[in-house]
């Protein structure tokens, strides 16, 4: 099995800067990243990472990255669809972002945690 080719959907500048060739920038909040990922699932892309990766809550960190397969299949992957819909339901349940203002050092840490989750995923995908 050849390594999976993939795209990283992200609103995290640290992720986008690291994987410039294979990331797709979302200019929006964490929910917008999931909405874009759901759109791609509808087009036949498969989720490769869980959209709620990490135990940092989706209404806490403003950053979110999701990895999907690069090329769409001809059919929709219903496991991916179920997972992304479940993730969106969770985000909506937990409510709007908690913090109006995030101190710069905390903002950098939120980016770092999301980045390290992606690093862990990318290492796994390249095995």
């Amino acid at each position: 099995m050849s390594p999976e080719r993939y795209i990283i959907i992200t609103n995290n500048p640290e992720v986008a800067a690291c994987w410039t060739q294979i990331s797709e920038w979302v200019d929006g909040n964490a929910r917008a990243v999931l909405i874009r990922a759901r759109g791609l699932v509808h087009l036949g892309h498969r989720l490769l990472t869980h959209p709620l990766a990490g135990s940092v809550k989706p209404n806490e960190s403003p950053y979110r990255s999701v990895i999907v397969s690069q090329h769409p299949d001809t059919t929709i992957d219903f496991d991916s669809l179920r997972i992304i819909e479940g993730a969106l339901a969770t985000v909506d349940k937990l409510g709007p972002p908690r913090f109006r203002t995030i101190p710069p050092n905390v903002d950098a840490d939120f980016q770092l945690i999301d980045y390290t989750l992606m690093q862990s995923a990318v290492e796994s995908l390249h095995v």
Partner: protein
Amino acid sequence: MRLELGKIRIKDVQFGSETRVGQGVLYVDRAAVEGIVGEDERIASVSVELARPGEEVRITPVKDVIEPRVKVAGPGGVFPGMVSKVDTVGEGRTHVLAGAAVVTTGKIVGFQEGIIDMTGPGAEYTPFSRLNNVVLVCEPVAGLPQHEHEAAIRMAGLKVAAYLGEAGRDVEPDEVDAYECLPLLAQAAAYPDLPKVVYVYMLQSQGLMHDTYVYGVDAKRSLPTLIYPTEVMDGAIVSGNCVSACDKNTTYHHQNSPVIHDLLARHGRDFNFIGVVITNENVTLADKERSSNYTAKLVEMMGADGAIVSEEGFGNPDADLIMNCTKLEKKGIRTVLVTDEYAGQDGASQSLADANPLADAVVTAGNANEVITLPPMKKVIGHPEAANVIAGGWDGSLAADGSIAAEIQVITGCTNELGFSHLSAREI
């Protein structure tokens, strides 16, 4: 494999000129503890504080809680692969300073979480309020990367727990509990008429701040595997997990897992507890599929009739939990899941991020979104300003008087998914 846990009841902790245990009091040589922590050049300074049950003290942000122990007979030492050599543990005799703990705190990332109140309403939600805590407040050298900072504090806590545990080496325990586990085939044959039960122990393993170590190995680097219950009880698993304060398993939880204790207590009477499968919780869906496939296959190979599955964390591990459940159920192995809930502040929303009709027996440790107000404390050990940026807190959570309005998920161990809690709902 037979393990004796000799419990030395600790009723108080005090600073003293030497570290020792006398009349149920743990005396701590403060300078010696500072010296042990200071050996790590990544730590610039440390202060050692004490927090006893009932004191008006708040500890935050809590990273890990560790029970001091010493191996007095049998192979290996405490925390194998971390503090001691990687000998296999789980047999012989280990002395436990029961009622004492080492608590590590340090601001590794700016939104770090975890509160232990030693009195007041918050104290009811954390079992660690009932312990005599030796708290390490560690400050890193300037510019230390976060993963190094986490590793330094993790090792500091384990080393100090091992050091304090040594004080119990020659103390006669107040009670000795013995646990015996047999090799799989012998265990299965021991009670042929009872249903065979396996415990599937899910370990958080997603990356920085989300890791668990088994004999010193990062759990994400391993396929699911077998482990004797007594190995877990004897310190083979330690926490490197700093997020999700309410439902992460601290090292103390691993050392004292109530799932394992309760399974052993009813073993041979209600069922035949034949072993533990440890598995991980990873980021990619392929890893989740692989680990859950492997877990279900191992449990099937063991010949189990039923499995208890416990989760660690929230959100994406719900997917691992459901995968483990459905794959076991489809093999005819009935499951009981242990989890907690994020059901919204009103408790009305869907509790988990994933679900399946086969998950029809679930034990909950409570709703982490319930809101609580923690009154101000006279003394705060650690970094109180963290309350404004921790999970479950929000802008303005920390009031001018020092009180904190937040969801109970800010409290260390409050919805622990091993059921390690003093709160419960009972039929009356």
